[in-house]
Structure formats: structure tokens, C-alpha cells
């Protein structure tokens, strides 16, 4: 098949062909596709995860239940915690999440994954040189810190509970949630103090 690069990319044409054939065969409805796409457009990214983190920071009992079982996010009205495991960063232990074989990601709390999470560089390197990877994200860990890498090889999904930054004692739960970034919940960043949060936000 000849392909003119001035035209639509071949994958776009092929996708239209696939969708149209599936609709013709009654295997798919255009409405169902549109509905999913609207959901993507409404995707609030990592805001759900940020709410979970903020609550865990202000409510030690909730934090305990959350670390025991990710299903505790239901207490915030959030679905999808059934296969969620939350791991907690501390001054001595840093956690970071990857999926080396495909792109498993905690969608229920973080929304759609960034492309770098799905790219070969992150997938290949995070398990063998996590400190070098974190350095590229601007995060230099002290050599006394243990790095815990979670390679999501099954249907369990991992989210990192970042450390609460200093100087946030007076903030409300909502203000705290606004500090929490997607990258901090993947484990490739820390949550910055309020003064620096604007810079650290993704």
C-alpha cells in the first residue's frame, strides 16, 4: 500500500478502518467510543491521588488504614482501590514505581500516565540505576537512603505516599493536596515546600 506522508498518518487511517469495521460488525458502537473519549477529556489526572495523600498527612488513622490496604481510598469516595498498594516515603526510605515489561500504572488515583513512564528509557533504567534516573528528575538522594523500586508485574498497582514537606503545618487539607504532584506519587520527585511548590509542580 502506498503511503503519502502529506496525508493522514497511516496509523490514524488504520485506526479509523478498525473502528469502522468493528462498528459495522456490531462489535463496537460509536457512542461507546465517544463516551470513553469524553471520560479521558474529563480525566483529572493525579488530583485523586493528591487528595489521598493530603488526607493521609492530616489523618494518621487514615494513613494507617491506607498503608494496610489501598481500598481505604473508598473513604474519600474514590473507586478503584481494590488492587492499590500505597508505599510510604520516609527520611530513610524512598519508593519509586515502574513497569518494565509494559506500562502498568495506578490509573485510578493518578489518571493517564505520562509518556516518559511508558518510554523505554525509564522502563529499562529504573530497576538497574534508580539513583541515576532520579538524578535526571532533579532528585539527589542521600547515600544513606534505601531506594525501593516497585516493578509492577501483576495486577497490583502501586502509588507512593510522599513525605509531607516542612513548613506546611498551617495548611488545610485542600492546600496540602495542591502541593502534591504526579511525579511525587510515582516516586521520581519529592513534594516541595509551599515556597518552591510552583516550581516542582508538573
Amino acid at each position, binding site marked *: *500500500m502506498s503511503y503519502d506522508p502529506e*496525508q*493522514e*498518518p497511516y*496509523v*490514524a*487511517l*488504520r*485506526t*479509523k*478502518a*478498525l*473502528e*469502522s*469495521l*468493528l*462498528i*459495522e*460488525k*456490531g*462489535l*463496537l*458502537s460509536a457512542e461507546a*467510543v465517544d463516551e*470513553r*473519549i469524553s471520560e*479521558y*477529556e474529563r480525566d483529572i489526572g493525579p488530583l485523586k491521588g493528591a487528595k489521598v495523600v493530603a488526607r493521609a498527612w492530616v489523618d494518621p488513622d487514615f494513613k494507617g488504614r491506607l498503608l494496610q490496604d489501598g481500598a481505604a481510598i473508598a473513604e474519600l469516595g474514590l473507586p478503584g482501590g481494590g488492587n492499590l498498594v500505597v508505599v510510604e516515603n520516609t527520611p530513610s526510605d524512598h519508593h519509586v514505581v515502574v513497569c*518494565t*515489561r*509494559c506500562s502498568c500504572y495506578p490509573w485510578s488515583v493518578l489518571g493517564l500516565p*505520562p*509518556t*516518559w513512564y*511508558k*518510554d*523505554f*528509557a*525509564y*522502563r*529499562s533504567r*529504573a*530497576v*538497574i*540505576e*534508580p539513583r*541515576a*534516573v532520579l538524578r*535526571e*528528575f532533579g532528585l539527589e538522594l542521600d*547515600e544513606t537512603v534505601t*531506594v*525501593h*523500586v*516497585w*516493578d509492577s*508485574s*501483576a*495486577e*497490583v498497582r502501586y502509588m507512593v505516599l510522599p513525605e509531607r514537606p516542612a513548613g506546611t503545618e498551617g495548611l488545610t487539607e485542600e492546600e496540602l493536596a495542591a502541593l502534591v504532584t504526579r511525579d511525587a506519587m510515582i516516586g521520581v520527585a519529592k513534594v516541595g515546600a509551599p515556597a518552591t511548590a510552583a516550581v516542582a509542580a508538573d
Partner: protein
Amino acid sequence: MNGVHDIGGMHGFGPIEREADEPHFHAEWEAHISAIMEIALDRRYFTIDAARHGIERMEPAHYLRAPYFERWLASIERNLIQEGLLTDAELDARTEFIRRNPGADTPSGTSTPPPPKSHQAIPAPPEPRFAVGDRVVARNVHPVGHTRLPRYARGKRGMIHRLYGPQTFPDTNAHGLGEHPQPLYSVRFEARELWGDSAEPREVVYLDLWDSYLESATS
């Protein structure tokens, strides 16, 4: 399979490239592929394990060259064709039609959707063979089919970190051979065990591994 997708620990893929203010999708077709994949999985046209294996079976150079959602497209095609729901010739012809007639109508649905496949009877999962703290070895296996045990961990010693409930066994389910759930474990590996002297200091790696991937380290 020992495929190029099993990329953990590989060198040569360069620095991590981040995009500022990245959109959810970079083109409209990507959102459509994502939606079609989700619907196909919901309707059980194929399983998530078959979807992953469909990506893994891409020609290796194509796998490395294709953007992310093109890999999904390749797997959707392969699985639908394998299930007898589409043919490659139909797809070629329809693609060519759309290329020649941009914006033209294509036939709308003429049949009612098939009912979702019913679940097969699922055997009861075996009891977990290991307990938290047990020393285990990930088996040194190199199956030609789908597996979630990465090459970098095979033959390596670890410790049971946590027990999860049983999960569908991907190595059979990806091939339509049944769900055969098994106990799943979080297994903790010291980086030094995985990477020898090349390991960074103070690093541990956790993998979620099914019961039959593991042997007792003392056996």
C-alpha cells in the same frame, strides 16, 4: 517469551525525555485506540494478558520503533484476527477505502453485538506455598509464550515480602488456556543479587510473582 519488551536492566535507551504540559493524547487516533482497547477488554473480545502478549509478539524492530499507541493498535488487530472477529484483508481494504475517500461514510452497524464471552469455570487457587520472610528463588525459565517473570530476576534469590490474594495466571490466560489463579507474592530482591557489582548501593527491587514462578531457596 524472551522478547525485546522485557527491557528492565537494558542499556542504550538514552536519557529520560519529559514533555512539559503533556496532553493526554498526542493525536486523535491515540484516544480512539485507547477507547477501543478498553471496550474490547470490557467485552472480553480478548484478555488483558492476550493484549500484552499481542504487543510482545510484534516484530522486534517494529516494537522498538512504534509509538506507544501504535503498539496497542498492533495488539488489538492481532487479537481480533486471532479470535476470528476480523481479517487482515478486511482491515487493509477498509484502510485503503478511507485513504481514498476521506470523510466518506462507512457502513454502520448491521448486527447486534455478540454477548460477552461467559467466564469459564475457574479452578480454585492452590494454597500459598510460601509465607512472609521465606527465602525463594525465581525459576530460571525461558518459555516461548507469555510470562510476567522478567529475565533480570530469573535464577535470582529473593524474600517473600507480602502475600496477595490469588490472581489469574497470565502464562496460561494469555494463550486462552484458562485463568488458573495462583497466589501472588510481592518478592523483595536485593539489587546486588540482581546486578552484582553493577548495582547501586542500598537498592531493593520488588516484583509481583505468581506461586509457580518461585522455588524454595533451600530446596
